[in-house]
Structure formats: structure tokens, C-alpha cells
């Protein structure tokens, strides 16, 4: 059993690397085909050995090189350095698909069907109809895969073995889903709203990726039908031409290549709702419930749990005694907002409040910083732990669950003072 989790991908060239038993875990590296075989980091060293062997920097069309976890369906995550910025650039934003038939959906041929047994007046519209028919809004929000950091689960669990980068923060522009639903007329018996996208499985027998939200979340003023990301049209790999944006909730609900919205009077009973994306009941401090999908033992994953990521210093970075150490990172939660981030410069014995950066909105990454002077020679573990305005704090030990969701254990990075 490891006693520590290392989240950070080392990207600082020439970082100190010693044996994996010490404070400086060996840093996994893989050759990068795009740079002539030069050594590049593949992910945190606590990822499964097999994951590290097959993870490379690869370049999807329209993207910068990202860490490839699987080729088909494409699952690519952002390297640590991307999170030096509070807003994630579109070409650096992670890519996650369940199914491998992913059509390119042209904006001018796109059509959205809105209906369902609990909608009074089904209708369809095109992109111009969506953009002109409703008030436009823009907000910053974190999209994080439910299984971000799954690869760091202890013990390991099956799935896409993500490191730290299956997440991003963008400014999303679109219209409110509730305005679109109002046009369709939501009947009083409406229970859930289901969303389908244009991607499909290779086999007919593979369940299509369709997800539903409880009607109250669908009607939340922040839930958007969006076509723009950071002022640009959505990249293909992030759901062009139109996707759902569900601020505060994990990425599984943010349907890409959105083609259909169905208002339902009955719970959606499919593999992707009833079996996948579920967490044990009562294990996590979440407040948003999805009652129509709950069973005795489990519940669909809903909101994100409070978390943070240290972006500086980098794992294994060296400092001289007395040298200023700048600690930086990002924190986020379910949209209650970040109340405090505390930093420990002594392995968790004492904690001091970090300074929070500019607030881009309660659904956004929140930057934080803290400075200290490097002490005597030796190895030091720097930690960060965020607390939300809801009052939840990152745990010091992983909350294990069989699917590897919600890994929000405190961030740690080991440095060397020499």
C-alpha cells in the first residue's frame, strides 16, 4: 500500500529523479514520436506500469500534443503545464469518448430535436435558430471527467487510466437549456431530460451513449446548450457543433455533438445510467441528488467534489536553502466556490492560508499562490488542500470506490532543498 499519492507530471527539464521508494518517485517517461524520440513525461509515476508503457504524446487534428491514453475511442489528457493557465486553451483541452464512431457534424447541417413524452410541443431547430431564438449567455466552468485520476487509484481499478489532466476550464457560450425546454413546454409529470449525441458504438449491440439529468438540474439557469468555447466554435473533439454544459457536474453529463433532447416522465433505464457512472451511496459529501436514478446501494455520480492541483513547484524541483519557493495551483468544486486553500510546506504538519487569485466565477478553476523560504537541506513535501464554500475539504486519504471516481485526495509534490 502506498502511503502517498503523486499527482504531478514532471515537466521541468532536469528534475531530480531518485528511486521510487523515496520522496522522489521515478518519473515515467515515454518517447515522443513528434519530437524524434526525445524523452517526454507520460504521466505520474503511480499510474499502472502498463499505462505508462503505452502512453505517448500524440497529436489529434486540431489539437496540440496531448497525453494519449487510448487511440480508439480517443482518450487524451492535458499535461500538467496546461494548468499553469486558469483557462484551458481549446487545443489543449482533454478529449474523452466512450464509443468509436464519431462523425464530423457540420454546423450548417446540424439539427436538434427537442421532444419526449413529457414535452407539450416537440420541435426541431438549426444552429441559427438556437442562436437567435434565445438569450445568449457565457460562463466559465470546469469540465472534469468523473474518472479523472483513476490511474492513481490504490488499488488500481479498470477503465481509462487517467492521470491528472482529464479536466479543463473554459468560457462556454450558448443559451440556457431551460429556455429551450420552455419552448417545448415541460409537462408537470416531467422527471428527467435525456440527451443524445451523434457518436455511436461500432456494433449495433453496443448501448448508445445517452445520458439524462434530473429535471431540476436541466432547468438550472447555468445549464447551457453551447456552441462556443473560449470565443471560438467548439473543437470537433470537444463536441462540435453544439454540446451540453452542466456546470458543477462531472463531464459524463456534458453531451457532445448534441442531437436530441427528450423530456421524460420515466427514469432513463440504460447501461450508461443504471450501471455505469455510479458511486456507492453515502460515500462522498455530495448534496446534489438524482433521486429517480438512485438504487439501494448506489447513485449516479452528480456534482464534482472539491479538489486542487499544485502546478508549482514541480515534482523533484531543486531549491537552495533560503531560496524563495513559489507555490501555485488551481482549486475547484461543484460550484459552491472555493473558500480557502491551505498550503503545507512541511509535509502536512502545519498549514497556512494561500492567497486566492481573481475569481472568474464559482464554476471556474480558482488560482492560488503561497510563498515560503526553503529551509535546511533535505526533501520536503508541499501539500495543498482546498475547502469549498459549502464547507467540504479535500481528504488526506483516497476515498476508494470500484470505478475510481471522485479522486480528490490532497495534492502533494516533493521537492529537494540542496
Amino acid at each position, binding site marked *: 500500500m502506498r502511503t502517498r499519492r503523486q499527482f504531478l507530471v514532471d515537466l521541468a527539464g532536469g528534475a531530480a529523479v531518485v528511486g521510487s521508494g523515496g520522496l522522489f518517485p521515478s518519473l515515467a517517461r515515454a518517447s515522443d514520436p513528434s519530437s524524434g524520440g526525445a524523452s517526454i513525461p507520460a504521466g505520474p509515476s503511480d499510474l499502472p506500469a*502498463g499505462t505508462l508503457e503505452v502512453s505517448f504524446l500524440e497529436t489529434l487534428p486540431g489539437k496540440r500534443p496531448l497525453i494519449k491514453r487510448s487511440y*480508439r475511442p480517443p482518450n487524451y489528457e492535458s499535461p500538467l503545464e496546461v494548468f499553469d493557465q486558469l483557462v484551458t486553451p481549446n487545443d489543449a483541452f482533454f478529449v474523452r469518448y466512450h464509443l468509436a464512431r464519431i462523425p464530423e457534424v457540420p454546423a450548417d447541417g446540424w439539427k436538434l430535436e427537442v421532444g419526449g413524452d413529457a414535452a407539450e410541443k416537440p420541435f426541431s431547430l438549426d444552429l441559427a435558430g438556437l442562436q437567435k431564438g434565445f438569450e445568449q449567455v457565457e460562463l466559465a466552468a470546469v469540465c472534469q471527467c468523473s474518472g479523472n485520476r483513476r490511474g492513481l487509484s490504490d488499488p488500481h481499478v479498470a477503465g481509462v487510466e487517467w492521470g491528472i489532466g482529464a479536466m479543463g476550464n473554459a468560457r462556454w457560450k450558448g443559451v440556457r437549456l431551460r429556455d429551450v425546454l420552455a419552448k417545448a413546454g415541460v409537462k408537470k409529470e416531467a422527471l428527467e431530460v435525456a440527451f443524445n449525441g451523434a457518436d455511436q*458504438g461500432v*456494433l449495433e*449491440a453496443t448501448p448508445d451513449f445517452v445520458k439524462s439529468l434530473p429535471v431540476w438540474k436541466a432547468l438550472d439557469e447555468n445549464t447551457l446548450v453551447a456552441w462556443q468555447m473560449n470565443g471560438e466554435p467548439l473543437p470537433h473533439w470537444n463536441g462540435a457543433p453544439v454540446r451540453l454544459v452542466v456546470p458543477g457536474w462531472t463531464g459524463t453529463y456534458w453531451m457532445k455533438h448534441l442531437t436530441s433532447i427528450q423530456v421524460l416522465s420515466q427514469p432513463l433505464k440504460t447501461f450508461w445510467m443504471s450501471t455505469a457512472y455510479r458511486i456507492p451511496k453515502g460515500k462522498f459529501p455530495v448534496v446534489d441528488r438524482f433521486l429517480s436514478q438512485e438504487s439501494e446501494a448506489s447513485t449516479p455520480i452528480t456534482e464534482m467534489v472539491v479538489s486542487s492541483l499544485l502546478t508549482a513547484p514541480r515534482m523533484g524541483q531543486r531549491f537552495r536553502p533560503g531560496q524563495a519557493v513559489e507555490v501555485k495551483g488551481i482549486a475547484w468544486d461543484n460550484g459552491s466556490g472555493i473558500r480557502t486553500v491551505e498550503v503545507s510546506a512541511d509535509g502536512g504538519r502545519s498549514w497556512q492560508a494561500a492567497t486566492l487569485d481573481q475569481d472568474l466565477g464559482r464554476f471556474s478553476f480558482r488560482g492560488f499562490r503561497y510563498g515560503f523560504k526553503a529551509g535546511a537541506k533535505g526533501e520536503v513535501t508541499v501539500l495543498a488542500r482546498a475547502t469549498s464554500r459549502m464547507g467540504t475539504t479535500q481528504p488526506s486519504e483516497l476515498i476508494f470506490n470500484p470505478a475510481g471516481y471522485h479522486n480528490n485526495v490532497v495534492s502533494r509534490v516533493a521537492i529537494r532543498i540542496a
Partner: protein
Amino acid sequence: MTALVALVLLASPPAPPDENRVQLKEGPSRDLVVGRCAACHSQDYIPMNSPFLDRKGWEAEVSKMVKAYGAPMEPGEMEQIVDYLATNYGRK
């Protein structure tokens, strides 16, 4: 001339990622595994999920692919596939 070649190289988009960069280990039933599994996903899914699954863990994964995702499998094939996975990508 060199400059021209460099320009052409710069202008051409990078080749899309080639999933064949990751190939499963040689061993009995490898072709069956590739045939059944790689229809829906690239081969790298298997080494990515290694070496932490034991035989029971691989059995559960293959069973999920059949029951939940509809992977077609003839009688007897599942056992061969699990054998290959446990032998080549199983927890030792």
C-alpha cells in the same frame, strides 16, 4: 531547395495518430483477442489496464464487454481470451 522542403513540411498537417503503434504481445490466441476486441477499441486498452487485474479481474472485463457492450463471442472463445489476457497482462 532545402528551404522549400522545410516549407512544404511545415505546411503539411501532422499525420494522425496511428493506433498500430501499440500491438499486443505474441502468444496463443493473440489473433483471436485482436479480432474480437479491436473491432471496437484500439489494442492499447489492454496494456493500459495492466498488470493489476488477476484472472478474475480479466474475466469480469471480458464478461462486461460481452454483456454490456455486445461483443460477439463464440462458445469457448471467452476462455481463450481470458487465458491470453491473464497470461500476458495479468497480475503476477
